[in-house]
Each structure stands twice: as C-alpha cells, then as structure tokens.
C-alpha cells in the first residue's frame, strides 16, 4: 500500500517541521508550506489525502483554503488548527465541511489518531 500524503500549511515553520518529523516517523509522506498559495498550486499537481492548515495566515485565510479545497476536491480531508480559537471559528469551519478542528497547542498523538480515523473512512487510492 502506497503511503498516504499529508500537506501541512502553517506560517509557523516549527509546526510544519514537527508534524513532518512525527508523521514521517509513522510512514506518511509529508509536505509543508508556509503560505497557502503555493500549497494550493501544489494540490493541483499532486494528490494529497489530508491537509492540515492553520486558520489565520498572512496571505489567505485558512477558511479560504478550506473553501478552495472542498470546492475543487471534496474528497480531501481538511483539519483546521488555530491559535485563535473561538467557538464562532469552529462552527464556521465545520459549516464549511472541515473534517476536524484543533486548537493550539495541538497534541500530536491526537492529531495522528484523527488522521488515521479520517483515512480509514476513505480507503487509500494512492
């Protein structure tokens, strides 16, 4: 079975780096992006199973990333993470079909469990 592909979009480079380290250790392929625009461009070239994105970033709102992904490839699972956690933001994210929502600080083990749960809902096509 080919490895699952995970994309991380967060302007905090440590977030990308740590998720990458942790998930690659479990055999996932992880690509990290600091800005949403190149990330969305990369999604057009390569199939990803899960996108983990920050909610508040400089160039584009994480909400915008969510909308674009769900409009173009609704099968991709999107997990939102944010340091700016509010009930309104969570409700808004789920209304736009986010698959899960994490407030920073994120427990990596929870994140892994979440990714696994989401991936088992959809068999790997890679």
């Amino acid at each position, binding site marked *: 079975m080919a490895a699952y592909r995970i994309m991380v979009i967060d302007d*905090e480079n440590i977030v990308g780096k740590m998720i990458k380290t*942790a998930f690659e250790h479990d055999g996932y392929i992880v690509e990290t992006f600091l800005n949403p625009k190149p990330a969305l461009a990369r999604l057009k070239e390569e199939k990803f199973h899960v996108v983990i994105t920050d909610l508040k*970033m400089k160039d584009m709102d994480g909400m915008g990333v969510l909308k674009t992904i769900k409009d173009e490839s609704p099968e991709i699972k999107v997990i939102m993470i944010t340091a700016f956690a509010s009930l309104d933001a969570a409700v808004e994210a789920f209304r736009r079909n986010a698959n899960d929502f994490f407030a920073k600080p*994120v427990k990596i083990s929870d994140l892994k469990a979440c990714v696994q749960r989401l991936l088992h809902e959809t068999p790997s096509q890679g």
Partner: protein
Amino acid sequence: MKLVHKIILGNVLAIMFIAVVYAFSYQKLDLLLNKLNFVEIAEGLNANLLKMRLSEKNYFLYKDKSDLPLIHEDLNKSAQAIDDERENLKRAIGKEKLAQLESNLKKYEQEVAALEKSGEFTKEMAESLRETGRQLREQSASLIQLEREAVNRIIVASRRALFSFFCFVLAIAATTSYLFFSKMFRSLRRIEKVATAISKGNFNKIGGKIPNDELGSVMTAINSMSEELGSRLEQLIQSRKLASMGVLTAGVAHELGNPLNNISMVAQNYLALYDDLSPEDRLDYMQTVLDQTERIRRVVQNLLDFSKPKKTDFQMVDMNQLAKESLKLVQNMFDVTCIESKLELEPTLPPVFIDRHKIEEVFVNLLTNAVHAMSTCGGAVYIRTRLEEKGDSVVIEVEDTGEGISAEFLPHIFDPFFSTKGTEGTGLGLSISYGIIKNHNGKIDVKSQIGKGTTFTIQLPAHRQEEI
C-alpha cells in the same frame, strides 16, 4: 479689590466730585446774585445823585428856592441808601472811600443848608457846591464801575474753574478707566488663552498671580475645571488603553498560542522520538524551546510596556528602531486582519530626543487607526521615515490604503472626543497623539483621499551632534 467694589467706589467719587462742583457753582452764583443786587442799589444811588445835581443845576440857573428841598430829599434818600448798604459798600469800595463819600455827602448837605440860610449865593459857594456834587457823582459812578468789574471777574474765574474741573475730570476718568479696563482685559486675555488651549485638549492652568476680583474667581474656576478635565482625561486614557487591550487580546491569544504550540510540539516529538533523534536534533529541539520561550517573554513584555502608566523620559532615540518596535507591538493585529505592513526606512537618520514610550503610543494609535480604516483584506500600511529637506527634522509617515476620511471630518480629527468609529472609539487617540507631538515641538498633519487612503505625517526636530 473686587470689581463691584471698584465700580461702587468710582461712582461714589464721581458723585462727591459732582457735589463739590455744585457747591462751588452755587457759591459763585450766589455771590454773583448779591453783586447784581448791589449794582442795582448802586445804580439807584447814582440816579438819586443825578437827580440831586439836576435840581442843583436848576437852582443855579433859575435861582428858584423850591429846588433846594428837592435836593434835600434826594440827599436823604442817598444817605438812607448808603446807610442800608453800609456793609456792602464797605466791602466794595473800602472804609476810607466810604468815609470820603459820606463826608462829601455831609459837606454837600451843609453847603446846601448854608445856601438855604443865606438865600443868596456867592460865586465861590456855587463853585464849591458844584465841585462837591461832581465828586459825589464820580464816586457813585466808580462804585458801579467797581462792582461791574467784580461781576466780570467772578464770571471769568468761574468759567476758568469749571474748565479746570472739566479737564481734571476728563484726565481722572481716562486714567482710571485705562487702569481699570487694561487690568480687566489683561485678565480676560489670560482666560481666553487658557480656554482656547483647553478647547484644543491642552489642560493648562492660568499661571502667575490670580487677581483678587471677580475675574480672579473665574480664573480659579477655570483652573479647577482644567485640572478636573485633565484628571478625567487621564482616566479616559487609561480606560482607552484597557479598551485597546480588548482589541489586542485577540491578537495576543494568537501571538502566545503559536509559540506555546511550537514548544508543545517540539517537546512531544522530543519525548516520543527521543531514541530516533540525533544528538544534533536534540540540541536543535531544545534551542527551539528556548527561542519560543523568549518569543513569549517578548510578547508579555510588550503588553506590560503598553498597559502601564509611563513617566516622562526623554532620551536619544533612533526613529527607525522605534518604528520597527512599534510595529511589532501591533503586528498581531495585522496578522489577524490580513493587512500587510510595509516598512520603508531611510537608512541613515539623525537621532531624535524624545520620550520613546509617548512616541510609541502615537505610532500604536496611528497604526491601530490605519488597520481600523481598512475593513477588507489586501490593504497595506506603509511606515516611512526620512530626513526633511532642510535636514533639521525627521519625518515619519503612516499611510494606509483604507477608506479615507471625508474633507468634512478632516479638520476635526485631532479634536478630543471626535471619532468616526462610533461607539468603538473613544475619540481620544488622535487628540492625545496631537498633544504628544506638540509637546515634542513637532508637527502632525493629515492628508486623505476618499477611497484611496489616509497619510499621517509627523515631523520631529532632529538632534544635531553639536547640541549634545
């Protein structure tokens, strides 16, 4: 002395003076009346003597003895008149002349009596009688003359005295009015100056000596009002800071949440993957933890710096450095609103001598306003520094690409309590900024175009090397 007392005193003095002038005029007019009465009497005497001499002439001409009793009659009338007015006459012509007049009258009487007795008259007798009569007439005529002259003198003297009174009153009135009103206007000008300053948000006090009058009471009232407004403003500034804290908190959650998350993730990986990590990785992880801790410390420090009241503290400051630090203070606000901040700094600037916390407050105010002016994503705020053309001041520009301010509001934006943000703003930010820049002998200007944005320009005097 109170103004009302001064006015009462002035009126009392004026009334007293009018009374003096009245008394003087009354006395002079009374004297004049007496003199005119006396002139009338003297003219009566003169007429008597004239009649007497007419009878005398008739007698010598027609030798008619019946003329002599007529002379007697007139003589008696004259003697009676002199007797009645003895005191006045004595005063008018003197004791000596009066005695002379009376002795002449007596002599005339005796000569007439002698004529009556003898029934005849010699040429000598006639001559002597005529001479005495002539002298009598002359004396009585000079009496009238003297009194008329006295009347003239009184009139002239009164006229002069009244004119002097007039000049005196004019001079006194002009001098006291000048002193009274100039003092009052000085006080009013001092009040006006401070009132104008208060209306511009500078809660100054009227310095110097407070006069002990009604305007002094007004000054004291204005001073306590200014003090009260000043302390209210302090409270408002503090509450405004708390209000901005509310705005900042959203950003702070983001600003603290990120480094906390970073530390947490690094620690989780460190624990979970300890055996798989190379020694370099482990060192790198721990360094990351330290860096992120430092990041948190800075955020907290910035918050404390912003919220605590600051004492005045002037120092030499590099404006570029300050611009960067001020931007950092509000950076999270930019982050959560997806507005770009762009620094365009002139690399070599002379230092400025300023209270860095105060100027930082101005920057934070301007940057907060700029962000609020841009409701939509994609805008940018430019922070520029440059040296003014003459080289004697440093110019800082804060430009936004927001909605702009309409020309109608533009002249009022530095007024205290003026806000276009409705209930969100206190209307104090720009007014406080204006006050701060003014206290630094600087200038703050604004230009705006609807739909294009607003630019605030601050000029602060550059600190030259030789001044240190």
